[in-house]
């Protein structure tokens, strides 16, 4: 078990290092510099600017400095937003993203499980088909479509919610639905299929035979055993929610990190792009690492293999 964890952890660090290096190389290979502007600047000013941002040193030295700063959790200074450190910019915007993300993850898991259980318990009946319709819609309608449609119907036509922003608890409803529609559908399908398998197994029959009440069978035996695939999926769910929020934040005008990310790419604000990339990467890899661990804890069979966990 220790070997398994260590293995995974080293892997994560290695991947992170490769990503950081690749990002650094890519950013420096791009023609043009964020310090260039339409206004003509004198060569002296240009030089001073470069010296200020450390761009006059050789690339390898810049890389070394960057890594050193990174080890101290310092992501540098934004080049477009004057005098603001990337750390501060991320810290300021991550708050909104985190709240929305947590609400969405919780909604996905709860609603997905509920839908999946209902579908499995009423196998081949009306409710099963209804759940199927919901999950097909959730999988087929991408967030780019879902979010504007929700906005149009519930905020513009019915006026039940605010069109944009993230000020009160009600403002979470539409973005959360848009973000968790696909994960809900996916989790519902996972739970349904594994639940059906579990419900047909012998130990459930035993439980029934010894006279255990229906809801006890579902809660104590069936659900616990069919949660396994969902645990694996959690890491990917968090990744999905984070990447999905890039679009959702754009549409609902939420000042979160995803919105900044797109903006920084369009602005070519290199320190900011790198900062957010690395931040995202750490977040995503850590969540995958944790979900791998959780899975290994729950399922002892997995500890024997060093391979990856199925999606």
């Amino acid at each position, binding site marked *: 078990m220790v070997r398994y964890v260590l293995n995974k952890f080293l892997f994560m660090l290695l991947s992170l290092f490769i990503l950081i290096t690749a990002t650094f190389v*890519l950013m420096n290979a791009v023609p043009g510099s964020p310090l260039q502007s339409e206004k003509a600047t004198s060569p002296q000013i240009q030089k001073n600017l470069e010296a200020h941002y450390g761009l006059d040193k050789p690339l390898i030295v810049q890389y070394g400095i960057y890594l050193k700063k990174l080890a101290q959790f310092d992501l540098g200074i934004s080049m477009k937003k004057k005098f603001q450190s990337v750390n501060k910019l991320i810290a300021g915007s991550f708050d909104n993203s985190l709240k929305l993300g947590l609400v969405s993850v919780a909604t996905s898991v709860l609603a997905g499980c509920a839908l999946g259980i209902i579908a499995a318990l009423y196998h081949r009946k009306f409710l099963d088909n209804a759940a199927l319709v919901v999950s097909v819609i959730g999988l087929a309608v991408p967030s780019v479509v879902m979010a504007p449609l929700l906005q149009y119907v519930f905020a513009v036509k019915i006026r039940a919610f605010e069109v944009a922003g993230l000020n009160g608890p009600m403002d979470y409803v539409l973005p959360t639905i848009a973000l968790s529609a696909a994960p809900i559908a996916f989790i519902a*399908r996972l739970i349904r299929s594994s639940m059906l398998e579990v419900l047909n197994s012998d130990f459930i029959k035993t439980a029934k035979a010894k006279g255990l009440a229906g809801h006890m069978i579902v809660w104590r035996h069936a659900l616990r055993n069919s949660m396994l695939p969902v645990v694996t999926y959690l890491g990917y769910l968090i990744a999905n929610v984070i990447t999905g929020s890039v*679009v959702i934040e754009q549409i609902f005008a939420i000042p979160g990190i995803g919105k900044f990310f797109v903006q920084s790419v369009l602005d070519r604000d290199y320190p900011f792009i790198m900062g957010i990339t690395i931040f995202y990467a750490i977040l995503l890899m850590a969540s995958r690492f944790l979900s791998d661990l959780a899975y290994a804890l729950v399922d002892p069979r997995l500890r024997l293999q060093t391979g990856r966990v199925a999606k």
Partner: protein
Amino acid sequence: MADLETPRATADPFAPLQRDPSGAERIQRRSRTAWQDVRYRLTTNKLAMTGFWLLILLVLMAFFAPLVWPFDHYTNDLQLNNQPPDSTHWFGTDDLGRDLFARTWKGAQISLFVGVAAALIDLVIGIVYGGIMGYYGGKVDEVMNRFAEILYSIPYLLVVILLLVFMEPSLTTIIVAMSITGWINMAWIVRGQMMQLKNQEFALASKALGASSMRIIFRHLVPNAMGPILVTLTLSVPSAIFTEAFLSFLGLGVQSPVASWGTMINDGVQSMSIYPWRLFFPALFLSLTIFAFNVFGDGLRDAFDPKLKK
């Protein structure tokens, strides 16, 4: 399957029927090959067939609608901007007076092209990489698998967006960016299949006859793994289409005046309270396409492996 004798209602319903051993060994119907089985299971799956016919329809429309339609996707007509759908402009026009019917099908072409191109690149790299990885096993497998795992652990969207910073946003960039990490899933599927197949007799026989490793992999093993490969291929198309729409929506993808569903949706969002049709049509067809590929892919998977049926 079918009973040899037709049970008749006799006076005594519980009297045992006469046994006729002569017919016991007779084969009642011709046996089906594996592919016939797959086709049978697929064609009897209504949802999958709906997806299939939807796809055919979408592909035909994407090809032929722009050819016969009187308007093209880029000519402006500022006199006729933001027209609601009517008999000349079936889907209405956008803010520059461009015909949305033409733009929608142009967008379909782009989406389908991106989806198919990305899936095919994944297919080629995945089969070669996965084939070699799975066939040789041991050290080769270990090293190649490690490399794939590292690449896989790097978040997909980050790679795509980073590449878009580096290269100009265009169709090619999107496809290249998606292929960088897209092939890994395919490679793992092929690897798994290889590991199962390489120890079977036909592979051994081929080896005994002196076939080279490459010949065994690509002439014998890969064709036998075609089922899972096809399924993965079909299911990777919608995710590519989705990513293209996602990136174009953010302004990081296909650039104007080319019509992509993502950019059209982005344009439509800005004015959805006044001109909802500008959002509605690209949104509808994007969802329909993704839906069709998903249900068809699911059906295909069930058809190839009925045990997996969910």
